[in-house]
């Protein structure tokens, strides 16, 4: 079915929908990972973003029930060069098209996704609209311009969990909000590290990695107060990834400020940006973001390079933390941007990239053990 993609700057791409009729809008971003589309689709950090995969053939290995990063598809639309309707993989349970249709998400193909990517690289990520019914470029460009800007919007509110949950049988095990009132909520107290994860849009694989590192993770809504968290007497606090601009998520920054020094803190992606702000830093929007599975990050302590998965359009401004006691731990090899911070005294550290990968390489998985180590030291 014919479709049209219109960008806010007026450029349009004729294409086809492979999921039937529909209309969608959001910010268009590209991801250079060659595998892992199902994880990307379900990653809450992509909330409000229409993702185009730079690898042209998508759908090859179908979808399954395991490679999910949240309980639903998060992107409003998915943009590929050539959709593959005949998946082949021993774990495949269905086609990507059916998966998208079931999630009411538009999938389009048969457009020059490399041209789209180059355009975004040169002009920056931008708002866009896709439609199978409105094929008039002028009208659709207008719709693209009506999409709320990502900068200044609190997108965390849309993706954070409504109820706290533990992790059981590889899925959330919800508990009542009022059970957070005491530390009796923990089920493995003393045997595992009690970790509260503030959910700004957490990927399931982070929880899986923390659990594997010996943690019992209690994921709580983003607006959970510092007082409640302190009452849970956690061994560590985890600040999750999440979508969009950190600036408007002021409530989280306030919470984190109050938690600094209370227990070891580990943050990933948006979690690092919020931690940075809590420590007095500033954030900025970067032109077209880092989204892919091949970003080289140098660990300044060891000198070794990790190939990392990344997904962010905002970052902590390196200069804003210059006078802070916090130490730079990781930098991006390609452009010297800030990838990791560590405040020894506050026992807080965070990285901009995704050690939980999914999709992506496992080079940075050691960070979860590092968190466990910090918690062990703090306990002793």
């Amino acid at each position, binding site marked *: 079915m014919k479709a049209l993609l219109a960008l806010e700057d007026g450029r349009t*791409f004729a294409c086809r929908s492979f999921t039937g009729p529909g209309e969608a809008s959001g910010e268009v971003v*590209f991801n*250079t*990972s*060659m*595998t*892992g589309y*199902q*994880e990307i689709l379900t990653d809450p950090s992509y909330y409000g973003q229409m993702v185009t995969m*730079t*690898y*042209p*053939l998508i759908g*090859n*290995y179908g979808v*399954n029930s*395991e*490679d999910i990063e949240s309980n639903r598809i998060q992107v409003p639309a998915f943009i590929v*060069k*050539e959709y*593959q309707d*005949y*998946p*082949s*993989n*021993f*774990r495949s349970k269905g086609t990507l098209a059916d998966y998208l249709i079931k999630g009411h998400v538009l999938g389009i193909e048969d*457009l*020059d*996704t*490399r*041209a789209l*990517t*180059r355009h975004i*690289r040169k002009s920056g990520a931008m708002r866009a609209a896709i439609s199978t019914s409105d094929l008039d470029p002028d009208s659709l460009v207008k719709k693209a311009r009506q999409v709320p800007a990502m900068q200044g919007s609190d997108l965390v509110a849309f993706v954070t969990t409504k109820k706290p949950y533990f992790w059981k049988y590889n899925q959330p095990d919800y508990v009542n909000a009022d059970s957070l009132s005491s530390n009796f909520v923990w089920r493995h107290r003393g045997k595992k590290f009690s970790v509260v994860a503030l959910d700004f849009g957490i990927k399931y694989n982070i929880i899986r990695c923390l659990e594997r590192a010996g943690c019992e993770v209690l994921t709580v809504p983003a607006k959970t107060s510092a007082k409640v968290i302190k009452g849970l007497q956690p061994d560590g606090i985890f600040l999750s990834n999440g979508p969009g601009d950190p600036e408007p998520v002021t409530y989280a920054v306030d919470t984190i400020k109050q938690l600094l020094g209370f227990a070891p803190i580990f943050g990933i992606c948006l979690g690092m940006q919020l931690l940075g702000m809590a420590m007095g830093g500033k954030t900025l929007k970067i032109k077209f973001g880092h989204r*892919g*599975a*091949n*970003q*080289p990050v*140098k660990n300044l302590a060891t*000198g*070794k*390079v990790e*190939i990392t998965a990344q997904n962010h359009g905002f970052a902590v401004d390196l200069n804003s933390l210059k006078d802070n006691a916090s130490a730079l731990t990781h930098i991006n*090899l*390609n*452009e010297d941007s800030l990838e990791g911070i560590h405040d020894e005294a506050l026992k807080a550290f965070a990285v901009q990239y995704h050690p939980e*990968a*999914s*999709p*992506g*390489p*496992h080079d940075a998985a050691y960070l979860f053990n590092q968190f466990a180590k910090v918690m062990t030291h703090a306990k002793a």
Partner: protein
Amino acid sequence: MPKRNDIKKILIIGAGPIIISQACEFDYSGTQACKALKEEGFEVILINSNPATIMTDPETADRIYIEPVTPDTLCKVIRAERPDAILPTLGGQTALNTAIEAAKTGIFEEYNVEMIGASIEAINKAEDRELFRNAMNKIGLRIPKSGFAHNFAEVEAVAQKIGFPLIVRPSFTLGGTGGGVAYNAEELNRVAKSGLDASLISQIQLEESVLGWKEYELEVMRDHADNVVIICSIENVDAMGVHTGDSITVAPIQTLSDKEYQVLRDASIAIIREIGVDTGGSNVQFAVNPENGDIIVVEMNPRVSRSSALASKATGFPIAKIAAKLAVGYTLDEIPNDITGETMACFEPSIDYCVVKIPRWTFEKFPEAQDVLTTAMKSVGETMAIGRTFKEAFQKGLRSLEIGRAGFGADGKDHLPDSLAGNDLEYKLSTPNSQRLFYIKYALKHNMPITMLHELTHIDPWFLHQMRQIVELENQIKLAGKNLPKNLLEKAKKYGFSDQQLAHLTKLTEKQVEQERKDLGIVPVYKLVDTCAAEFRAVTPYYYSTYESECEARVSDRKKVIILGGGPNRIGQGIEFDYCCVHASFALKEEGVESIMVNSNPETVSTDYDTSDKLYFEPLTHEDVLHIVEKEKPFGVIVQFGGQTPLNLATGLHKAGVPIIGTSPESIDRAEDRDLFQAMMDKLGLLQPENGIAHSYDEALAVARDIGYPVMVRPSFVLGGRAMKIVYDENDLEEFFDLAVQASPDKPVLIDKFLEEAFELDVDAISDGETTVIGGMMEHIEEAGIHSGDSACVLPPYSIAPQHIDEMADAAKAIAKELNVKGLMNIQFGIMNDKVYVIEVNPRASRTIPFVSKAIGVPLAKLATKVMLGKTLKELGFTTQVIPAYYCVKEAVMPFDRFENVDPVLGPEMKSTGEVMGIDKDLGAAVAKAQFAAGQKLPESGTVFISVQDKDKMAALPVAKDFYDMGFTIMATRGTAAFFEENQVPATPVKKVSAGRPHVVDAVKNKEIQLILNTGATSQTQRDGYEIRRAAIKYKIPYATTTDGTRAILSAIKALKKERLSVKPIQEYHKQNV
């Protein structure tokens, strides 16, 4: 860690001659490494016996030894050069083995030479099966279970350990027979019995069967600081059981999810660490069970490989160059990524296109060999294609193959059976073979379900579905016919259909399709290969075509020239032509002209993005080349360097108004067209062997009678002496006439007088239309009748009378002038009964140009390029022939050990895959060096077995006497032995194979024979001689099959007995010519 300062001089080992499984990819990696290390200020020393390489160009390394790549030579070079370090990981398995053998002598310790790249320990750990098994087990991975058995008790015990199904492989068989798959104990009994019988040492290997598992490869790099990155992932379309070199492969991996891919990535990293490859690249191969994802490690190569060359071309990441820099101390994060200029080499390329590699086989050259693909590689070359979809890349790859196909069939050459039951279809699908793809197509045409096709081929359904989509579109196009709607035409181009296919399907002409398409605005765009999927700006102009909206080709307004490369390697067209194309590019650079390379061969230096100003990785077809010409609007196109492939395009391009520079297409035609050529010979007063044309057997009979036997019978319009035969009498004429007709149906058969026992010479010359200079004259060692590509030859000639030399030089000059040659020209002469005959003229670069250039120290292809741009030879300062004061011997390297059942005799049809060069002031020593370089380990004592035909006995006598006088024992078959005895040469008689045991092959097996001289193979002597020659190959005993070859080996052994072979760099030799 920055560059090491404690080493200054580095010795690099090259791969030697092109053989099956070791082709020009090692020239590509070696050249990159040499360049990289020179850039870093190291003194680079090189050993390589292959003259057709860019790496042996005097500029590539400081001192280049064109000497045999053997442990012995390596030790000599180490003694002469005293290098600080040796880099053995860039010259294939040959270089690794040579280094390991040399290390055993203790020379590295003696001269304090450090092995960089990979240590002996790491190499052994990767190569030794048991060490490798243990290493893998240690990191929780496994390799296929296996064990040896010598009797049924052992078979049972081993089978118990492995489980069913399992594969039985007899050790040491002639013909690879007797093995098989056993699915149960009963079958095992049967298969094991036949295996034990077939094995010469009554031993079989039982191995866990992973047939049908999916095969994957990862290219890994590691530096001193233990940073590890994956450069490329590759999926084999053919399942386990077909050698990866014979598999169609695709990058990146298509049918694994991220979870499964990351498991392979983690495993690869663990493997390179555990094996202990300190720095550089490695290739890891995995088998994955398609049912459940179980993983087995197939093998690991601790060096750059064919796959790493492919990975480099597929991603734009120069693995060999980076490997060289890592070996001298740099870390990945210190080396910039050339393609982006702004990022570092420490990352993992992301690609936004699909790459398909398809092997090129030459079974047509070996009709006795079975066209079946197994775990032993048989292809001689490969082509790579890039597209935005698999379907596009796949069809581009197929039309790049130079097998006369325009894509995935649909070109009028399909042999569609009437039904699924026809044409052995199921057998052809279930037994991998060079034509299997087309049988898949036929099956799809008959609507065979994917599930069934998958069961038969084990090819992943995803790939089969892609092929089905192509076939479905083909059906639609055919249905639409002449009124092809725009959307269908557009879709067809996106699916990789060529205009030629569309013309066939719509019954329009190719020209009409092209016109209609262009009228509709459907033209290709060019996209960049940039390592990063457009995330960063790319500075290196490396392009491929596709049908999309945005074109990224940056067309400059400089004067530019397009060079058309040679496509995939095959027998008759190899690295020599790529060498010339690369030189053309260098010359253009020197002249300030923009160089644009078009080629489809991923193994080559020409397709290094560094070689030319621009690279178009594209099929070499009329349509694809014309599109590039239309985009770039070059000053000229060079067609005379890339061998037959671009030459075949010349006329069409010329007609389409493309400016061909150098010798005109008309002149090329004049040399190729029989009548025009005859007229020219008459005009110039030159002789050519009597000849005639026959359209029927009766005509052939008449022509042959008229000319007189022996005659040479050959089809017209074919390459490399295809189906060419010498016919001695009327009995044979009919059979060979039929063969010639089969090889080129509907075309006349050419019949020439065969110059029996004539001297044959190759002459390469360069001309600017006015001045003609002889580049080199090469006297063939073998008599006329052996294809010039297979004949050993010597420069300068060693037994030709001066007046004949002058006569040939004059003839060459007259022909060059007559044809107005601008560039290179090759002439073959024959001398018989004191008369000089012109056998063939080719006004283009020949296979011998690199050899001649190395011999005389003059870069002929470069000069020729400058001539094409308008320079005169006078201006270029090359006006007199260089005649070296030393002998240069070229020897051909044959692939007979790869093909069972093939008789290893030489003839008019070319069969060699590569060549080596031996240089020495003494002719015998030069021959000896060439022999060693070609892998013939000449003995200095022992037993020589001589078997000749009656007519050759007189000629063989002095040879036998000389060997006897040197202390060799002479062994011969009864008749020959008696003849020798009668003539005072003592000889031990031995039985022919047909005369009962013990016979000569038993003697070979028992290592009682060190050298085999077996000449005069004709159909009468076939069987006995054949058994001996095959035994020679199997047991790696040096042999000669011609009388002249025998004499050459004699002279070589004489030289060996006189003094030890010395080594000398090519630069020293060239100094003598000044």
